[in-house]
């Protein structure tokens, strides 16, 4: 309930702002509406092209443009059939459906782990005062700069060989390359800096009075975290979950590098990439495959989108 109340007030404030701000007035005009719709339409054209192509016959695809579908509607579900059930040429006998489970098994923990750790870390960095907490926060923030491509091989070496200094083993080999854990860990590691940053900004802006009142009532840090901070942070957590879900779901690089050729743990993206065939002669399957794979992120996005804008604003702009 408290969340609902909180969001109503800024809305009213925004309305007042629009009336007094000439920039807002301009954006609300008919001209602006038309511009926005034109840009949106232009932006959608390539997607529309892929979408119509996914229903066309290979012969049509290679001989004329996708817009011909409106003049000569000749629709086929062959591409979707190939993606779901294989193409009958024994290429992908079972289609990509089984790999959806792999994608989910990879994605769900890879969203839950960083969110859990980041929420706790963000609370700790904003409300538990200890020496060097600012430095740690700054250091974590700076870690966002490390590009994932640079750390693929060192991380893989850590998983397979551990870290040794001469004969002293600093970190034993983890032995998780080619297992799901070997994919969860890199995703978690790379999500943490941004997750902690976003959630820190949100959690540190919670009213101090709430925390103090709770502490006066004898609540420990853990109780405050669980009973006050966690319920209040739901919009920010949901917003970051959407982000992280989309990143992990769409990821191909980490999955390819860390699945280490283990067929059973490959996500659906890795399988889809293979649908085109060795010489790329079946690229028409990719059009259907693209729409099959975006189905899940779309469901996640639409079911959580009411948190999305709210959560992002709460985390970044104050």
């Amino acid at each position, binding site marked *: 309930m408290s969340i609902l109340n909180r969001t109503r007030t800024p809305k009213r404030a925004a309305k007042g702002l629009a009336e007094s701000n000439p920039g807002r007035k301009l954006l609300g005009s008919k001209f602006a509406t038309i511009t926005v719709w034109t840009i949106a339409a232009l932006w959608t054209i390539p997607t529309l092209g892929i979408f119509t192509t996914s229903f066309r016959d*290979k*012969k049509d695809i*290679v*001989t004329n443009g996708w817009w011909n579908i409106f003049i000569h509607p000749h629709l086929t579900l062959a591409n979707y059939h190939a993606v779901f059930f294989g*193409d009958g*040429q*024994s*290429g*992908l*006998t*079972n289609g990509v*459906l*089984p790999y*959806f*489970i792999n994608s*989910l098994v990879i994605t769900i923990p890879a969203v839950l782990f960083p969110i859990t750790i980041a929420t706790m870390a963000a609370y700790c960095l904003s409300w538990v005062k200890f020496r060097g907490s600012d430095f740690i926060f700054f250091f974590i923030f700076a870690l966002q700069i490390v590009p994932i491509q640079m750390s*693929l*091989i060192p*991380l*893989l*070496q850590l*998983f*397979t*060989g551990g870290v040794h200094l001469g004969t002293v083993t600093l970190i034993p080999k983890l032995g998780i*390359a*080619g297992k799901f854990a070997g994919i969860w860990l890199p995703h978690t590691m790379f999500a943490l800096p941004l997750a902690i940053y976003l959630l820190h900004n949100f959690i540190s802006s919670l009213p101090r009075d709430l925390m103090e009142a709770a502490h006066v009532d004898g609540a420990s840090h853990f109780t405050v975290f669980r009973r006050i901070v966690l319920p209040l942070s739901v919009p920010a957590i949901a917003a970051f979950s959407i982000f992280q879900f989309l990143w992990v779901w769409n990821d191909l690089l980490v999955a*390819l*590098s860390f699945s*280490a*050729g283990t*067929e*059973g743990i490959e996500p659906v993206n*890795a399988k889809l*990439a*293979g*649908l*085109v*065939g*060795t*010489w*790329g*002669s*079946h*690229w028409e399957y990719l059009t259907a495959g693209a729409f099959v794979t975006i189905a899940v992120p779309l469901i996640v996005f639409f*079911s959580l989108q009411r948190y999305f804008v709210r959560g992002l604003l709460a985390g970044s702009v104050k």
Partner: protein
Amino acid sequence: MQIRKKGMLVAVAAATVALVATFVAPANAGTSSAACANVGSGYAVNKGATVEVFTSVVGDELSRYQAASKDFTACTGITINWNGSNSFESQLPVRVAGGTAPDLALIPQPGLLAQMVATGKVATPPSAVTNNVNRYWSKSWRDLGSVNGKFYAAPNSANLKSLVWYSPKQFAKYGYTVPTTWAAMLAQSDKMAAAKQTAWCGGLGSGSATGWPATDWLEEVVVREAGATVYNNWINHTVKFSDAPIIHAMNTVWGWMGNSKYVGTVSTIATTTFQNAGVNIPTGGCMQLQQASFYAASFPTGTVVSPTGDAWVYYLPGINPAVTTPVEGGGEFYAAFNSNKATQEVQTYLSTPQWAVSRIKAAGSNGGWLSANTGVPNSAYSNALDALSAKYLADKSSTFVFDASDAMPAAVGAGTEWTQLTNWFATGASATTIAKAIDASWPTN
């Protein structure tokens, strides 16, 4: 909310069933005498062992590899896990450096093989493999599997690039014939141009590998004009791109594929994907396309690929009579990353004619798989296109050269040569400018 949750549960349950159904495969590997007869003798039984072969082959073709190795598994108990990835070329170095190297890798570029050998992780093949390769492959193939004179990798399949796709039906309709000399080929192209037909079509687009078809055109002309010695010196950069023979060859290519009389607007070649380049051949929208034997898969379903059908190939004729039957091809090589018993057994099997025949059988009448293994009889091919290609590959009198861009250092052969030749077709810059730009990018060490 309740309904949505239920729906998701059903979806998860359905998908789980599908998952279980996929991964419950029969695991009754054991020795079978019928299978062993097809495999050959001398293999130790090694029940339960799995050997991973990492490859760039995916889709249909990968499942034919799986089918072809069934007898071996039935006979020896060793399961071969064919693991294909489109990003093989970038994944293999990552896996080798990261410590998750596959047992065997099927490497299509001698340049990449050399790079892998340089890491020190490639195992020396057992003597059985060396013996097979000495016995069944020509010296040029053995050399391609060697690095600094030391043999590492046995060849797998081969593909023939020196082919021109055309439509026998369209040729018959207009009274064209298959040319046997370069001059006759261009003379007939002039006739097509005069009749307002597109004599040649081409496409360089291929995602991040855009430009490779142009390297093939240049290579074909270089070997046809200057012969194998200049060609091989060109690969190791003793002959530079800006040297006379290569510039001459570039001008010949420009008079052929860069000739607006034959191809229409030249710059469209740079923007057309190679898969789409020849799709109008069956209908006469375009008369000829220089492309490798594997282009057969790019025609729309229903296209009859036969000597009298919608599409077929002729051998790209020679230019210089001193160079007899110049043939350009590509191929793949098996490199091992450990010396385990099971890995070596598989490595040995993959170098035998028995394996090649089994793989050809798995391809069936669709074809698409050739071997330069001389132990394979031409009668093994049930696909006419493959039989024709294999004839040229196995021909002892032919001048065989390997795809130069695959053998050059990757920075050039899979880098600047692609981009500069694409640039050449897109802008029509002079051959000298393009050649100099490629030379400048040659790695110094």
